[in-house]
């Protein structure tokens, strides 16, 4: 089977304070260290497990600035670590900048149509920087394939039918659809493996196919800020929630401080009438 993983390469959310550029009113991305979105790593891992079981190849598709290259290599290294034939597509160029969710879905769909026919598309449910969580279903619609979203378990492929457990408010629903289909996977359903050195080396030899918007036949009404159906008008500081009392040990032994801290918390809980 040919599995396409769509994922984002994002500023490293663990290493810096995300900020919004006051001019463009977009997330500041330039010059920040970029990583493969942890949600995308989960999607790659799920693809690896399916292809290890059924055989086939995996293509990774992303849209983003040139910084995204590092994350693309990570995805390719993961695929190569499993000895699975890997390909990658990078949607690159200023024409894509400022795309909204729908523009992103259109661009991904156009790129996927350039690839060999696919059986399955896997995405994270939402990227770890913006959390919109609607691109996968928009993408499925653009490609005319059934969306199997919010999977907390990929039960398996039998014949031409894919079955998942879909996360719900009260548990899960067992849901199935015929391939080709799209699955979006929740963040906890697998533990992504680490790439091997051999995989990292092999990934370097993979040619990453880049496309500009015009190469895909997409214009300013399809992608980029001009196509966005929404516009951020203002970005301001919210009503700040004031920090209250912050208590630190003044040098007493840890056990003494721990005792005092426990009393402080209990007093506060009592003042709130929680105890």
């Amino acid at each position: 089977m040919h599995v396409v993983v769509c994922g984002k390469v994002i500023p490293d959310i663990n290493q810096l304070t995300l900020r919004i550029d006051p001019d463009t009113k977009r997330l500041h991305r330039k010059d920040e260290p970029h990583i493969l979105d942890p949600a995308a790593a989960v999607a790659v891992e799920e693809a690896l497990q399916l292809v290890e079981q059924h055989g086939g190849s995996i293509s990774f598709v992303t849209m983003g600035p040139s910084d995204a290259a590092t994350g693309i290599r990570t995805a390719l290294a993961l695929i190569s670590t499993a000895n699975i034939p890997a390909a990658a597509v990078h949607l690159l160029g200023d024409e894509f900048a400022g795309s909204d969710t729908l523009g992103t879905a259109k661009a991904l769909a156009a790129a996927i149509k350039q690839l060999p026919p696919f059986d399955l598309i896997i995405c994270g449910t939402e990227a770890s920087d913006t959390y919109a969580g609607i691109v996968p279903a928009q993408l499925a619609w653009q490609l005319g394939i059934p969306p199997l979203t919010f999977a907390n378990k990929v039960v398996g492929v039998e014949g031409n039918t894919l079955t998942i457990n879909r996360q719900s408010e009260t548990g899960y629903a067992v849901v199935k659809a015929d391939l080709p289909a799209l699955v979006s996977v929740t963040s906890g359903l697998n533990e992504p493996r680490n790439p091997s050195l051999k995989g990292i080396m092999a990934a370097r030899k993979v040619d990453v196919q880049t496309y500009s918007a015009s190469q895909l036949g997409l214009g300013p009404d399809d992608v980029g800020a001009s196509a966005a159906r929404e516009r951020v008008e203002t970005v301001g500081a919210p009503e700040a929630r004031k920090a209250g009392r912050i208590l630190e040990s003044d040098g007493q032994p840890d056990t003494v401080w721990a005792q005092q801290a426990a009393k402080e918390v209990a007093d506060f809980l009592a003042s709130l009438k929680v105890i």
Partner: protein
Amino acid sequence: MADTIWVYAEVVGGAVTPTTLEMLTKAAEVGTAEAVLLGSAPADAVATLGAYGASKVYRGDDPTFDSYLMLPAIEVVASLLQAHQPAAMLFASSYAGRDVAAGLSAKLDCGAITDVGDFQLSDGNVKATIPALGGSYLATSTFTHAGPRLLLVRPKSFEPKHTGGSAVVEAVPAPADAALRKVQVVDRVDVPVEGPQLDAARAIVSGGRGLKSGEAFHALIPPLAELLGGAVGATRAIVDAGWVPYAMQVGQTGKTVKPDVYIAVGISGAIQHLAGMKQSKAIIAINSDPLAPIFQLSDLGIVGDAAQILPLLIDEIRERK
């Protein structure tokens, strides 16, 4: 209609969801509120929607809406939107809400603003307020193109008000097109969660990576929560690490909570987490890193080792009870 606002109503566990009622209350304050309710629902669902502000309910009760996800609902709502052209349509940021809104946006080539915390109508357009990056910014966003305006609303953004109105019902048939029956529900499984539910709990004790291990989490967090009659929460980091199930996740991609007191243990305060708990009435943080962002919004911050402090806190509370 210029000031008609639609709400995509959802039923979970046999009851209309709180977020549906919150959105209806807000819609009725801003304009004329109407609801679309598809799939099985309790007998009093329409009355409930009316009591919280809906003057009309488009009701499709065909079993197709339960057996086949998304596509039939998208088809029906798309036709209704085109026929009636409300000023905006509100969806909860839920599983179904996000899927239906996403499909409508793609099908009708129209905008969808996500993560909405508030909105108003002005000059026929919508101005939405979004607590971006976990509330570190407040952005306002509007629609730039003609066509339906879809808003995905965060839970607990509005206070639901029972105003006692009633709704007229317009029946909506299910679409006949077999091509829309692609995503089939084979079974629904309820996974019972022990103890109070996160959404409803008055006290929540949450743990994060600062606890260092799943064992430490399970030894410390549930006992304290139980003692307070509260629920157990977790950060995305430890859900991803496999310490606890996704159902415990508080944050932008997990549950949004608003308890009387939120105790954050070993939680640094990543944007993703703050988004889900910032509205708590009181916040207590225990963390060994004095620079942890969580302290900046805590009413009481304790810089210290949770593994030492929590057992003593549990003893202290037991003594006082």
